[in-house]
């Protein structure tokens, strides 16, 4: 910065100084270690895929994934214990990545979610064996045409797509950077790094291949569209501020800096650029969050994607995207609060209401959960809008609580099966409580948590965000929030009625007995749901300590 501060115009730079030497970037490897470990494991996973014989790949990949994610989580814990979540919070990698409380909290959540999701990815006892070999819920060969000769051969050969593990690790790597990104370009790169693997994963369902591929194409097209919005917004913000770093833009917004880049002298400080650019970046993020009116992809993608992927995506993407949204609004645009708050109010209200109301008419479990995730995005937005430290920590807590409920709920969905694979149509769930009381009871616990019934994590989370919103002066949002909770409760309850009070159908689905992998995922979901519901204080403290962004 000091070098450019002396510059007066484009021409004098070239004349007065020797060719600028590009400084070697200084990278704090230790502080970036969570991301590096995950991406490293992903690269090793690609090598495993290339060099190991097929029969050993599954176990090698699973081990690698679990170890990689666990090591990365340990690194997050070590960083947090080293004070990076508090007073030692800093910006690493030449201003590209923040290492602070919210980033570490969200990274830890994403890693845990990824770890649990990896278990459901690895489940091989639910699908009937194909030609004597156990298979998972992913296509035998992703590139094969559905129903074509190549697919038939791949199935006959007992092939499985073990690539899902490194692909998932890449996605997690991107998600780790997304909420920590401290400049807009890093934000964009992280967005693409985690989105592209998700598009691929969505297309890989073993059953209902066409639906799955359709969902992937929809997700990809709309996702690319939203990425374009984001990138355009980044360009406009650069034009406005002459920099892409969060703190630099914030300074220009706040009017505290006047170091103009001569090339941008005519646009710097132009509020039109700021407003349009900021709005476009927000569109990109709200798309990932699944907020109305950028939610159209959610039900189709949630329904078509393989259910373990849906669970992973619903939980982890939401965490990462809300993290990025928080950082953008709290670090870059706090000076713009009076401009973006009314807009976000509208988005939050519409999201809560549309999610809850449209969900009432759904007849498919996965679509139902998709609309419920939209409604929950609205609740979380209410906490985002609070613009207080309480707001940040309540959102962090909500994300942690919500993601485990979601994972568990989708894991249960994978268990309920009939001859055509997962039986996701709601009518088939009738009487499940009679036939498999335990599974139905567990699903009921998750539904009650979604509905925000006290003594579940959903209630603690909802109370936290609504409390923050009320204190942040958004009382009407709280009113809309409780009303849409009431609407939402209706359809959660409807599923419970169906499971427990309806007569089982003769040709109804059966509940498969999963391996310990999925059982672990579900058990973790239940335990987290109840612990966060009954004794949330420790985790609220954790989220509270993590509530300050570094600039």
């Amino acid at each position: 910065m000091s070098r450019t501060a002396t510059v007066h115009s484009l021409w004098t730079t070239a004349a007065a100084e020797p060719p600028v030497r590009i400084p070697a970037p200084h990278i704090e490897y230790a502080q970036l270690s969570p991301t590096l470990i995950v991406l490293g494991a992903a690269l090793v996973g690609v090598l495993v895929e290339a060099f190991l014989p097929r029969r050993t790949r599954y176990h090698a990949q699973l081990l690698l994934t679990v170890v990689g994610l666990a090591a990365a989580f340990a690194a997050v814990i070590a960083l947090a214990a080293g004070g990076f979540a508090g007073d030692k919070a800093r910006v690493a990698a030449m201003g590209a990545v923040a290492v602070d409380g919210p980033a570490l909290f969200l990274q830890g959540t994403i890693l845990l979610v990824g770890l649990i999701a990896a278990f459901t990815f690895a489940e091989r006892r639910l699908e009937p064996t194909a030609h004597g070999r156990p298979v998972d819920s992913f296509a035998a060969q992703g590139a094969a045409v559905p129903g074509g000769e190549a697919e038939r051969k791949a199935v006959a050969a007992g092939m499985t797509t073990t690539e899902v593990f490194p692909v998932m690790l890449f996605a997690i790597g991107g998600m780790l950077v997304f909420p920590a990104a401290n400049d807009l370009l890093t934000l964009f790169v992280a967005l693409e790094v985690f989105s592209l693997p998700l598009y691929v994963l969505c297309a890989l369902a073993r059953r209902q291949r066409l639906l799955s591929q359709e969902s992937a194409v929809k997700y990809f097209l709309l996702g690319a569209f939203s990425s374009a919005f984001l990138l355009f917004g980044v360009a406009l913000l650069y034009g406005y501020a002459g920099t892409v770093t969060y703190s630099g833009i914030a300074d220009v917004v706040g009017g505290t800096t006047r170091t103009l880049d001569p090339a941008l002298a005519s646009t710097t400080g132009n509020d039109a650029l700021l407003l349009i650019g900021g709005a476009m970046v927000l569109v990109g993020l709200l798309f990932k969050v699944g907020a109305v009116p950028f939610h159209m992809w959610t039900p189709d993608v949630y329904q078509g994607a393989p259910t373990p992927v849906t669970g992973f995506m619903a939980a982890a993407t939401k965490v990462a995207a809300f993290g990025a949204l928080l950082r953008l609004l709290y670090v870059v645009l706090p000076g713009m609060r009076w401009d973006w708050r009314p807009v976000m109010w509208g988005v939050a209200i519409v999201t809560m209401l549309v999610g809850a109301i449209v969900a009432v008419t759904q007849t498919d479990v996965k679509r139902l959960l998709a609309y419920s995730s939209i409604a929950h995005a609205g609740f979380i937005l209410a906490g985002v809008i609070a613009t207080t430290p309480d707001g940040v920590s309540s959102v962090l807590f909500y994300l942690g609580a919500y993601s485990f409920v979601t994972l568990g709920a989708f894991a249960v969905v994978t268990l309920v099966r009939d001859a055509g694979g997962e039986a996701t149509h709601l009518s088939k769930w009738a009487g499940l409580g009679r036939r498999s009381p335990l599974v139905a009871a567990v699903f009921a616990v998750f539904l009650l948590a979604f509905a925000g019934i006290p003594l579940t994590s959903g209630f603690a989370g909802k109370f936290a965000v609504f409390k923050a919103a009320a204190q942040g002066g958004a009382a009407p949002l709280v009113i809309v929030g409780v009303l849409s909770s009431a609407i939402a409760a209706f359809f959660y309850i409807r599923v419970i009625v169906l499971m427990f009070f309806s007569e089982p159908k003769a040709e109804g689905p059966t509940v498969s007995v999963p391996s310990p992998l999925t059982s672990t995922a579900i058990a973790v979901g239940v335990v987290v749901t109840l612990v966060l519901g009954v004794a949330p204080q420790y985790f609220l403290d954790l989220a509270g300590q993590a509530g300050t962004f570094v600039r």
Partner: protein
Amino acid sequence: MSFPLLTATAVVPAVGALATAAVPAARRTAAKWLALGFALATLVLSAAQLVRFDPDAAGPFQLTESHAWIKDFGVRYDLGVDGISVVLIALTALLIPFVVLAGWHDADPLEDASTRWRPTQGFFALILMVEAMVVIAFEATDVFLFYIFFEAMLIPMYFLIGGFGDRAGERGEAETAAQRSYAAVKFLLYNLVGGLIMLAAVIGLYAVTAHQLGTGTFSLTEIVQARANGSLEFATTTERALFLGFFFAFAVKAPLWPLHTWLPNAMGEATAPVAVLITAVVDKVGTFAMLRFCLQLFPEASKWATPVILVLSLISILYGALLAVGQRDIKRLIAYASISHFGFIVLGIFAMTTQGQGGATLYMVNHGISTAALMLVAGFLISRRGSRLIADYGGVQKVAPVLAGTFLVGGLATLSLPGLAPFVSEFLVLVGTFSRYPVIGVLATVGIVLAALYVLVLYQRTMTGPVAEPVRGMPDLRARELVVVAPLIVLLLVLGVYPKPVTRIVEPAVEHTMSQVHQSDPKPDVHVNDVEAAK
């Protein structure tokens, strides 16, 4: 630190619920005895509360326990009982063993049930779970803690209503199941909406206390104190909005006209013991919470809303009674009678006189006992014939005289015959109301006349007259059923003649509540009496 009696009273049934649920499918009878054992243990603990409770002690709450719980939300695990709650806990603990005994065979699985489906264990576990949650709701002196259990008790209650019903009879299995799940969903949605609106008010309360006191709190004692010493002041609009949020939830639960429509469905479809659980135990939390939270937290707003609430409760009294007269279904008749009685209770509470509130509290107890007696006997009757329609009965007293006799006593208690317990409380409520609102007091007495009508007509049609064909050969009360009914009838008689033990405990608490509401103004009932005397 002394023995946490209040926690124990709630934990014992909760543990009992888990233990009962864990009993293997084949050991149904063991599960029943286990549930009964835990219910009786809770009764013992509740008796210990009564023994250790000192009506004359200073301070609003006794046997208090206080622990930090969720610091971030300003929530504490604060328990304490006053005279009102200790009596209501005793009522709950007293009724649950009878509910368990009366429902002994209600959840026996049909022959073809699969082995993994364990309805019996579930039924009794849910009853105990409801008991645990109701007890802790009565004990909570932290608004948030109360709210949590106020809401959470809906879930076991919902499964009790939707999952278990009378034998299908002539309506057919599918029709019955559909009606039942409709009733359960209606129950849950009404109460959930009420609860969520209250949630908004609870959050608002936190926001106000956090804003004015620095740290948000839900402690009833702290808020009351802060209001008394002026460090906490609600703006008029805020207080009214918060009051309405709380009152709405309690009025749904109580239930007050026009939010009452879930009750006849729920009580009609549920088995008789569950219906008793709804009306005699769970609904009492609503009226209790009006006394404890609405009046104490928002005294000014309570006074502001009084005229409207009095009119609503008057409508409840008359409307419930009128509809009870017109019912053809025994259980729905009792449900409408209960709506009428809840009208009296709310009337007593908001008459804002010592007699009114004392009478209302006593009414809660008496209504619990009398409705339990009437409903359980009605349940025994229905289980014999398989029909809830009044028209299907006739001449029962010739075939089953004991059953008819106990039904009559329960009915007479419901119509507040002098000498039976509800008379005292109804009289107190009417006196308390009349001293301040003479017109409403007079109109409310019409409810008593109607009560005589619906009870006596019910008795006449079912029990007297020629013996109806299906009733012929109907067995009289069995030993288990007598064990359930006899103590309730004895209690009705004893409390009817000598209500002092209850009023003695309740009165100081009522006076305390009154002093909260009338912090500045003198007792207006004195004025009214003075005016009367001057005339």
